């Protein structure tokens, strides 16, 4: 494909970079192909494809990092970027030497042939089917928009700490927006399944029948939803997307960059109990099901792995990339991810979930006299400094006297991470994962989130009915 991208070529670049007397040099080359289709009113309104290749050259000396980006795979331009990065680094003040913990054995398999681009036609056909199913669920479904995004990313990484590897990564996602109308009442909801899989495999893991039914159901349920209550309440958080709670409340502040800057609410707490004893939290790049955080290697070439972060309530590990592992004197956990070659890696999650417990989910509800059942979580946000977080329930119900009763309107729950983790008092046995997009400091990566059904004794519910 391009003459640079063979192992010997990459190694030459790294050796040349090493010759510039830096503590670390890395070349990350990427070629990404995309297909996007937008279906509205059952018509393909927009179809777009594209391909782009580029390289990020990263070097450091001491604690200073220099990163030069070139959107070309041309060897000449890359060499010149390496020289430029080296000279950039020389202009920074002298620092003490940094030694990075090893990434693991070098993988010297030859570069994979770059597979063919994702097919617009296949994506459009899948969306048409989703559209057909969604509309067929009920005449009250009045509008359907389905967007499909497919990406194929091929990466090659070589670095001075012994990494020499390549990988092919697939990702497909459908964004289904449904509007349901009944009389003068109009409600909208959305469902956004994604997988680290090509289009064919995505539609076998997420049949159009399942996507359409769920999307329609989420909008239709809101037609009967009453305003949500407000104030402190017990919350039963459903499995799958409910994992957004642990993603915000617990794991974002465990990312090594926040910890190494002393800006995490969980800093200095390794070994301490930060959650109730029934809570074990895992970040697992190899979780089955091809959820979007499934990676063989991270974007620094470090093997993805199964990391236990919280074990029976005790904090046992942070999430690190190469730089933060060094700063924290922590092992590398294979969480150095980047949105693209144009971005610097930083500690990011892969597939993050609460391990299953013993409770039957129906028993959890039966044991709850009054509360909210959060069946589908749309998303959340956290301030890692204070630990304060929110998540939004896009399909939820009242629990009254141990039974699920009326659906409630979309509402946001607020809590403080350290408090909420200790308020988890029941952990179910029905572990399920789901997909999510995670945004941090302007960079988007796709992840898996999950949990079994859990119960939180108290969170503040942001409804409107007192």
């Amino acid at each position, binding site marked *: 494909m391009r003459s640079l991208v063979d192992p010997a070529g990459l190694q030459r670049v790294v050796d040349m970079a090493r010759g510039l007397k830096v503590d670390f040099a890395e070349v990350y080359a990427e070629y990404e192909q*995309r297909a996007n289709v937008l279906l509205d009113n059952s*018509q393909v*309104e*927009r*179809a*777009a*494809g*594209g*391909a*782009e290749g*580029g390289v990020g050259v990263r070097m450091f000396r001491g*604690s*200073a*990092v220099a*990163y030069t*980006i070139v*959107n*070309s795979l041309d060897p000449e331009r890359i060499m010149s970027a390496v020289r*430029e990065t080296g000279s*950039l680094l020389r*202009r920074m*003040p002298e*620092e003490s030497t940094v030694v990075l913990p090893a990434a693991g054995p070098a993988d010297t398999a030859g570069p994979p042939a770059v597979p063919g681009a994702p097919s*617009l*036609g296949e994506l459009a056909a899948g969306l048409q089917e989703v559209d057909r199913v969604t509309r067929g669920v009920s005449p009250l479904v009045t509008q359907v928009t389905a967007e499909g995004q497919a990406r194929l990313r091929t990466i090659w990484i070589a670095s001075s700490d012994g990494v020499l590897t390549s990988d092919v990564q697939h990702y497909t996602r459908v964004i289904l927006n449904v*509007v349901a109308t009944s009389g003068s009442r109009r*409600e*909208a909801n959305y469902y956004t399944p994604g997988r680290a899989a090509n289009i064919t495999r995505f539609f076998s893991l997420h049949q159009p029948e399942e996507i359409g039914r769920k999307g329609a159901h989420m909008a239709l349920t809101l037609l009967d939803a009453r305003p949500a209550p*407000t*104030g*402190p309440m017990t919350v039963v958080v459903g499995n799958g997307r409910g994992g957004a709670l642990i993603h915000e409340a617990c794991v974002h502040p465990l990312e090594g960059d*926040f910890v190494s*800057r*002393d*800006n995490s*609410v969980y800093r200095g707490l390794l070994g301490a109990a930060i959650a109730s004893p029934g809570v074990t939290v895992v970040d697992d790049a190899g979780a089955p099901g091809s959820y979007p955080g499934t990676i063989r290697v991270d974007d620094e070439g470090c093997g993805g792995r199964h990391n236990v972060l919280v074990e029976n309530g005790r904090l046992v590990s942070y999430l690190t990339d190469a730089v933060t592992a060094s700063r924290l004197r922590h092992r590398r956990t294979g969480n150095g991810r980047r949105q693209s070659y*144009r971005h*610097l890696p930083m500690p990011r999650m892969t597939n993050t979930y609460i391990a299953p417990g013993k409770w039957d989910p129906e028993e959890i509800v039966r044991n709850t006299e009054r509360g909210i059942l959060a069946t589908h979580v749309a*998303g959340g*946000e956290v*301030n890692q*400094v*204070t630990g*304060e*977080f*929110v998540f*939004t329930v896009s399909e939820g119900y009242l629990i009254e006297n141990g039974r699920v009763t009326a659906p409630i*309107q*979309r*509402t*946001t729950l*607020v*809590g403080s991470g350290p408090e909420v983790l200790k308020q988890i008092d029941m952990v179910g046995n029905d572990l399920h994962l789901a997909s999510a997009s995670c945004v941090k*400091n*302007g960079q988007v990566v796709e992840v898996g989130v999950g949990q079994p059904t859990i119960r939180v004794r108290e969170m*503040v*519910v*942001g409804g*409107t009915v*007192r």
Partner: protein
Amino acid sequence: MVDWDRLLTLAGRAGATQAEVYHERTVQTQVRVFRGRIESVRTIDSEGFGLRVLVGHRVGYAYGSPVHGADLEAMAHSAVAAARVAAPDPSFGLAEAGWHYREPGDRGAARIPLERKVELALEAERSTRAVSSRIVGTDDVEYLDFDREIHIRNTHGVDVAAAHSQYRMFVTAVAEERGESQSGLGVAYGPGGSPGDPGPVGEEAARRALALLGARPRPTTEVPVVFDPLVGAGLIRLLNRTVSAESVQRGRSRWADRLSERVASPLVTLVDDGTLEGGPVRAPFDGEGTPARRTVLVSDGLLQGFLYTAEAARRVGAQPTGNSHRHNFREAPEYAVTNFYLKPGAYSADEIISVTAEGLYVQEVQGLHMANKVSGHFSLGVTGRWIRAGALAEPVRNMTVAGNLLDLLFRVDMVGRDLRFFPDNTLSRSCAGGPTFRVSSLVVSGK
């Protein structure tokens, strides 16, 4: 060098009946510092093309970064293949008013030496720490700047080019007292060739963090709520789809069929202005080459109009308003607001607080991006200060504010004159702005 004619010819040869080439080059530097040292310096020189074609009434899009001949031909075929997957629609098309425009720009960002950018970031960090010993640290201290050139040409005679240079600075200050931490944000931006004094950005971040130390939740109640400009801008941004002609045409805007009717209190005037002097979004034309303009959406509470992409305009025989944008060359143009803001009113923020007997002053929110833009419903986590007897009192946290944005607009009863915009570190083509404003009552939930 872009060979325009070649690309447009290749598109025609591949089967396109109309074609548009969008070319963008951005040179960007981002410096991050921490504890008096450089954390990272990132430089990008990025160049790319987007090719949009029509095959009859079907639209297709392909993008790529330069530059070999083979690539251009592949792009042309790719775009045409994409068009063949799409459904025809007579409203689809390119910008038609053929015009030439050249604005050379000054590559201001490139003229500032790297050492100076590093020094500015370090100074911002120093100034935030200098405010108080209770400022124990910082997060995300960044100086970023860019020089961006855009050139659009199509087969209808549109041939426009402009360049824009801007710097942005961000500081997050971390304050700590009695084992509790709070954070505060400072933001500044301006022309790339003349970065401003970093002192005020750092000081603002520190003040905001310190103001929240000791925050506690309060009992649930219903009171007037004052939104500071950062939060206000976030709320205004949620209206971007409601004012979109495209949303109206698809039955997704609650303001459809309400032209000339009252949709807000008489204090609310909502504007979108791609030509705004000093606005963070600067482009004399939109992502299709349509001239940028100023559009008043709501005037003294009465709905005046909507924002139109070329396609939405064609559907109803209206004029496009320059609201078709791409955030980068990898995307086909789509509806977007530009500098989108609530027009400032007469009062200072202090005056608004001083006439509020009891209420909540919101300084930070979480959960904005999950509001429902079709119904207007929102439910947010809030942090701020309680207002008592016309003065800011104890800080509050772990509370929520919920309601419906479209109903809330009727209850705006005071609007400040301190309009501000808050761009972020992604180079988005939209930015919302707000002054401080007060809403007469909202449910605020806590303990």
